[in-house]
């Protein structure tokens, strides 16, 4: 991997954008500005950032219920993402989806998803299209450890492998499926080892090291574009907050464990590296911080001031061809 200041600063900036976005979302939620409920990506920023840094706009991402970071990393604006959480007409799904149904096909985000694992076969399907139409696009599925004991993991990865599809399967193993410890969910504790069962490369990386993720994803994307088939990447990471905003996340996880992972914060670690290796000065990083804060403040302001969707549109676009929709369409 070629060391590159511009790249490093871009990775740092994106991780910080996700972190500040999530903090602002939590604050907005607590102020009652966000309906429903939201799952935050705090602690896992390096994964989406390191993977999506390799993607073109015409590549596609299928995300999970913890999807804000994937959306931002794939290029959905902070404004459109925040406005969707607020349920506003200016949101990326025009207020129809919310946190778990972020859609921005214009930039290749084909949905975050409320169903654990569902993105895995969907991503394989996009790969089928790209391969059959001889396009050099790639498809990515992000999912947690909670998805790997599901049919979708087995069937989706098996089909992608046997048919040689250009897909990158990214498991964000944050060690808990809601409250279920991975150690109690399955015997083999490394998800990447399962790749051997399906005959595709499996790579395990430190998911809190953005450069490690970036490097593994780079090879996986290269392989996929070159027609060499799918890769399974397991990124071991941790959500240092609760499962959703409002869940303290402590009842089922030892405090020492949470503290240990907080100390391994992917953003702070990368910041130390940038400073120690003189990739950037403290002033430059402070400048990035200011720009990111301004971006997120603007996104919240934008969302807060955006109009609600028109209730008259609630029955629209149920079908691709009936504008009115409804049971008697």
């Amino acid at each position, binding site marked *: 991997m070629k060391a590159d200041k511009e790249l490093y600063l871009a990775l740092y900036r994106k991780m910080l954008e996700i972190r500040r976005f999530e903090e602002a979302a939590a604050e907005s939620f607590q102020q009652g500005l966000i309906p429903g409920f939201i799952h935050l990506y705090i602690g896992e920023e390096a994964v989406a950032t390191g993977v999506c840094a390799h993607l073109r706009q015409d590549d596609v991402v299928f995300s999970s219920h913890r999807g804000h970071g994937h959306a931002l990393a794939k290029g959905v604006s902070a404004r459109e993402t925040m406005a969707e959480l607020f349920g506003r007409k200016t949101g990326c*799904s025009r207020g129809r989806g919310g946190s778990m149904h972020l*859609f921005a096909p214009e930039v290749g985000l084909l949905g975050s998803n409320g169903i654990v694992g569902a993105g895995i076969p969907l991503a394989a*399907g996009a790969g*089928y299209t790209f391969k059959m139409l001889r396009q050099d696009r790639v498809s990515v599925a992000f999912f947690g450890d909670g998805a790997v004991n599901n049919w979708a993991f087995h069937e989706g990865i098996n*089909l992608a492998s046997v048919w040689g599809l250009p897909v990158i399967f990214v498991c964000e193993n944050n060690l808990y499926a809601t409250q279920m410890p991975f150690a109690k969910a399955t015997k083999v504790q490394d998800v990447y080892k399962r790749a051997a069962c399906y005959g595709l490369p499996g790579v395990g990386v430190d998911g809190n090291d953005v450069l490690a993720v970036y490097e593994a994803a780079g090879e996986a994307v290269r392989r996929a574009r070159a027609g060499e088939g799918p890769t399974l990447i397991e990124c071991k990471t941790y959500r240092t907050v609760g499962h959703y905003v409002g869940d303290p996340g402590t009842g089922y996880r030892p405090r020492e464990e949470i503290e240990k992972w907080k100390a391994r914060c992917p953003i702070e670690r990368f910041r130390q590296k940038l400073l120690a290796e003189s990739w950037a000065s403290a002033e430059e990083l402070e400048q990035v911080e200011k720009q990111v804060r301004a971006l997120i403040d603007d996104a919240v302001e934008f969302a807060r001031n955006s109009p609600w969707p028109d209730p008259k549109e609630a029955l629209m676009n149920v079908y691709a061809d009936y504008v009115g929709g409804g049971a008697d369409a």
Partner: protein
Amino acid sequence: MSMPTTSEEGQMRELTFMEAAREGLAEEMRRDPTVIVLGEGIGPRGGNFQTTLGLFALYGEERLRDTPISEAGFTGLCIGAAMTGLRPIVDIMFADFGLDALGMLINQAAKICYLSDGRLKVPLVFRGCIGGGNSSAAHHSGNYYPFFMHIPGFKVVLPATPYDAKGLLKAAIRDDNPVVFLEHRSLLNVKGPVPEEEYLLPFGQARVALEGRDVTVVAISAMLHRALEAAERLAAEGASVEVIDPRTLMPLDIETILKSVQKTGRLLIVDEDYSPCGAGAEIAAQVAERALDYLDAPIRRVNMGFATMPFSPPLEKALLPNVETIAQALRDLLAA
């Protein structure tokens, strides 16, 4: 809409239902290189029900993809393919096998157009065989279409003749929505006239299969043929029965049914599937809401008995609607 005649449509041949459907599929695969079929045994074998017979030699493995027994997986894969530019047909063989894929169909395929505010489409055909009557037993005979009628986003198509099988399948393949296309086992070898020229049948247009004055029968899928036989018996007894084939249940052509009920004042719905929350319940409710004043008798339904499809012929026969149970329901309705 009535069946075309040879003089209107040029050359007609007699084809079986499956031959006609296959001809429609072949035409669409020739016309549009993004049409693909995935399923178990649909490659060189040509499909358990000969849905794809002969097509593998023409279009090869990428477009006629034999799958492992991973119904949820390859259905999910087809949804992702449909979102990104292909027009996949999931050939699920027996509709019962599709139940493993229901989560992907309902939570993903049906909802994506809406959630993306119309910016993503899922042009998917989910095709399978339904229906009892040949000791296929509990896991190879279910009907299931009310599940899909109930969910916003699906279209639900049930052809009952070779002519409709071809025209509706072609329309289903060109439709930009997930279309559930269900073929009753007892119809597959039924023969009927099919034009050589290309034609498509729009969804939401019921067919008046037999005109009559005294009572309306709405008969779904294979029940059409039993209802027509029952109508013949009633004709011999002096009653004039109108028989309507809805052809698609979503969208449902309620107008054609209402028009008929306004004429006859009596309605019987014949549906091989179960009655609770079924297609007939929906049709009856819509007629009651909009044409109660025209009814001279309560709406009646004939459905299969509310039990799992048994294997043994006498048990199975006891549950399924037949010509005589339909004829008797008509007599009762006319006497009401």
